[in-house]
């Protein structure tokens, strides 16, 4: 079975701050990590490979520095890695991102594609489903359990108050929740091996036969971030403690009258 996992390199939001003026992320000096959902998806892929055999390939679109995210995935146990990196890809929105990744996936080949549900920076949860649509694949989002039997996968899909178990014929696409799997650590030997392997880098020229330049990058993106801003924190409420029921009623009434609500 050939599994391809899409991983995005994101800033570690635990350490990220918003620029109060522009409302955008301050990325300088913030460590980059593999998006949480994607690491869970990778772990699921590695476990499937351990059970039924096959290979796990990781794909990342990003700047050259995203190489380290792919090395980390290799050090966890992925077999090979592709970095999609080109000036032409810069400024892509989710649609253009999905177009580029889908094109690469066609070239790589797969039985099962796993993406994360959502990236912790862009946060749209659109790229996975868009890749699925562009490749005309059946897809299951919000996977919290994943198993395989012959040509079929079984996915438990999370809903707010319930869950569905779906049986889907491969090839297909799944978007993974962080809850899907607890990712393993890299191993020391895995890291040494990862730096002895090659990460295949594909630029625009490598994909151009199947890629319309009008559909990628800034000019190929139907959406544009028009403005982004942080939210103002509201003042905390007043806590009235240790009052009897009567005192509480009186205190509330007093406030309501004071504010001319009644």
């Amino acid at each position, binding site marked *: 079975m050939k599994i391809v996992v899409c991983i995005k390199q994101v800033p570690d939001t635990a350490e990220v701050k918003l620029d109060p003026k522009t409302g955008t992320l301050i990325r300088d000096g913030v460590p980059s990590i593999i998006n949480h959902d994607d690491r869970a998806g990778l772990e699921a892929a590695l476990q499937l490979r351990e059970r039924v055999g096959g290979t796990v390939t990781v794909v990342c679109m990003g700047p050259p520095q995203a190489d380290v995210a792919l090395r980390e995935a290799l050090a966890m146990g992925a077999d090979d890695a592709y970095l999609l990196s080109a000036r032409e890809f810069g400024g892509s929105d989710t649609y253009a991102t999905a177009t580029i990744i889908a094109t690469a996936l066609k070239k790589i080949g797969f039985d099962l594609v796993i993406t994360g549900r959502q990236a912790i920076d862009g946060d749209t949860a659109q790229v996975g489903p868009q890749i699925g649509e562009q490749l005309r694949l059946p897809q299951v989002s919000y996977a919290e359990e994943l198993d395989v039997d012959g040509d079929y996968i079984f996915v438990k899909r999370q809903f707010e108050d319930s869950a569905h178990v779906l049986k889907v014929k491969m090839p297909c696409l799944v978007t993974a929740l962080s809850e899907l799997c607890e990712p393993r650590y890299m191993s*020391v*030997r895995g890291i040494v091996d990862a730096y002895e392997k090659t990460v295949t880098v594909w630029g625009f020229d490598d994909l151009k036969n199947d890629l319309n330049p009008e559909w990628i990058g800034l000019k190929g993106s139907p959406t544009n971030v028009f403005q982004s801003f942080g939210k103002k924190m509201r003042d905390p409420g007043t806590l009235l403690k240790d009052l009897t029921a009567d005192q509480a009623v009186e205190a509330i009434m007093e406030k309501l009258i004071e504010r001319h609500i009644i």
Partner: protein
Amino acid sequence: MDFKLDKSHQLQQQLFRSFAENEVRPLAKEMDENETYDLGLLSKLQKYGFLGIPYAKEYGGCGSDTLAYTLCMEEVSKVDASTGIAISVHTSLCCSCINNFGTEEQKQKYLRPLIDGSKVGCFGLTETNAGSDVQGAQTVAVKDGNDWILNGSKIFTTNAGFADTCVVFALTDRTVPASKGLTAFIVDLKEMPGITVSDNIERMGIRAASNCIVTYENVRVPADRVLGPMGKGFKIAMGALDCGRIGIAAQAVGIAQGALNEAIKYGKERKQFGKSINSFQNTQFKMAEMQTKIDAARLMTWRAAIAEDNHEVFGPLAAMAKLFASDVANEVTRFAVQAMGGYGYCREYPVERMMRDAKITEIYEGTSEVMKMVISGSMKLK
């Protein structure tokens, strides 16, 4: 010359750090209080390759290097020095002897399981009458047919409580000084009849580490377990200690950095005289001084490690790194307790443990006085 770690080392450091934070830190206090090492943690260390870092892949190791091993020692010792010594004695003392002096067959048979994560090793040199001065060694090995019969007792054998394999040193020739009469043997602590491992020796620090008296009573050791040439035990042991000192220096750097980090975190929150104690210039200047010393100790440690990786003479460099780093660890941990006041002295916070743990780095694998002998010995003073 480049003082920046390359990408592979950076990623290894990231692994060591996150493993130490998530797996080791939560257990450190409890292990210290119970004076027992958590064997579940030990098997995780094995699983992720922490016990075979600088050894070749062809024997089951990770194929990394001594520099990466110091990064590991620093990161784990930042949160728990006992984990540091378990890794160090196994890697530097036990495995290096077999790696450097074992025959091909011995490496396949004894080194492989140690570095691929199936077995744990220890090192028995010190005796009650032979500490800094090996000449007092009394453990003997007498030839019997093709085998050797071992008798004697080794004190302070780290890891002995759970280790499988021990490199032990015994006199095979009592007519010459120990430096010429000692021979190294590879023994199975758990399987060979006649070996007794004592309870843990009660200690001031690194209390989670296993550290025992191992008694050998008519232990029959087959000839294929003689490690290196007959009578070369002293040389083998000293070579291993040279490697080990790099690990102890890194352990000391880790203890120091771990304690300083705790003090910095605490001092940001703690308010006296209307401001955080980190806003007092005295605290800031002390912290600047401590960080400078830690950085110097780290660079000395890396220098010794890189020299070993490059197959250069590194013994005196390792001794200097250990001498300096162990002193820094004691100074910084004492400062950290002071900077945190009464809370630093309490067991709720880890710095009192770190202060207790720091002391051993000036004692084992050669005391600071012995380090000065090694360093001055290399200076052509006479």
